[in-house]
């Protein structure tokens, strides 16, 4: 509540809390622990159904395009880099640099989503794998679709934060909000790291 001398904000220690961890950071980490269980159960469903696929299930390797998915994986990794740079920038009070990094994060996020949409279209119309015509389609589209929705919500959040940063109300003291958003975005990335391996790569072994 008391004002802080300019340039002296410690972004990693909040003296008003019992642990020194800012409340919003603690909240976000607790939420991400919960989201781990959420994706854990969804990924479990997919893996369980890949244990003994019924006869007539399409072969995943015939449907997947490893080139496209690798590309979108690289893009998401790059978006994580951009996000970390954005948080770093606002913690130094560098609004311009934060905005540039945010824009790049959003662009990477949109490219990822574009790749997902393209991939889904390919699978449905060219490879004839739909969400309802096989168990592989059901688990695949639900899992990657849920992840995609998480990415979309992240992009909306990032865009809202970007627009807000142009109103003049976002300053260094609000770095915690950008950092919390960053934690969410990185989490979406690490979930994709798991999905890329267990949903895509494992099929090729």
């Amino acid at each position, binding site marked *: 509540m008391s004002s802080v001398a300019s340039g002296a904000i410690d972004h990693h220690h909040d003296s008003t809390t019992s642990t020194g961890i800012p409340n919003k950071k603690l909240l976000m980490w607790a939420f991400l622990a919960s989201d781990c269980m959420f994706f854990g159960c969804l990924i479990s469903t997919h893996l369980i159904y890949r*244990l003994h696929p*019924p006869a007539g299930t399409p072969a995943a390797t015939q449907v997947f395009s490893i080139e496209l998915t690798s590309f979108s994986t690289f893009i998401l*990794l790059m978006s994580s880099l951009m996000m970390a*740079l954005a948080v770093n920038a606002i913690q130094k009070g560098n609004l311009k640099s934060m905005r540039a990094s945010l824009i790049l994060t959003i662009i990477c996020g949109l490219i990822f989503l574009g790749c997902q949409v393209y991939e889904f279209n390919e699978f449905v119309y060219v490879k004839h794998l739909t969400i309802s015509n096989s168990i592989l389609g059901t688990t695949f589209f639900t899992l990657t679709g849920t992840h995609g929705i998480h990415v979309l919500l992240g992009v909306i959040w990032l865009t809202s934060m970007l627009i807000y940063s142009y109103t003049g109300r976002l300053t260094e003291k609000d770095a915690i909000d950008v950092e919390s958003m960053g934690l969410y975005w*990185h989490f979406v990335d690490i979930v994709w790291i798991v999905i890329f391996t267990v949903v895509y790569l494992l099929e090729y072994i």
Partner: protein
Amino acid sequence: MDRNLHGRIPTRIHLILYKTMSHSAVANHDHGNEHSKFEIFVQLAMLLAVITGVEIITVYLPFSHTTLVTVLMVLSAVKFLFVIFIFMHLRWDKAFCTILFFIGMVLAGFTMWALLQVFSVSNSIPLSSL
């Protein structure tokens, strides 16, 4: 984790780890000069890209199923841990944040393992797959 990695990883990772460790020594008051934070992030991103490339190549290698699965799991775990400790800043934050997240992560991992075990036994094979 660090001890496990140090043994067999090339120089670039040593550089990142060295930089992160020397900065954690200064702990919560000085988060290094901006150049090396920036460098750490960029180098990590390049490393993650390289590991991803290695993963993609791995699936085409002629090793046994078990070996390949293990390699993939380890590489993914390495990427996962690098992102949470460096991009998500856990390396430099209070230990409680790490504990909090690991509770969720470990529980999710255990639940996944238990579910897969239950569904892997012969009793659980659906009749339509026999």
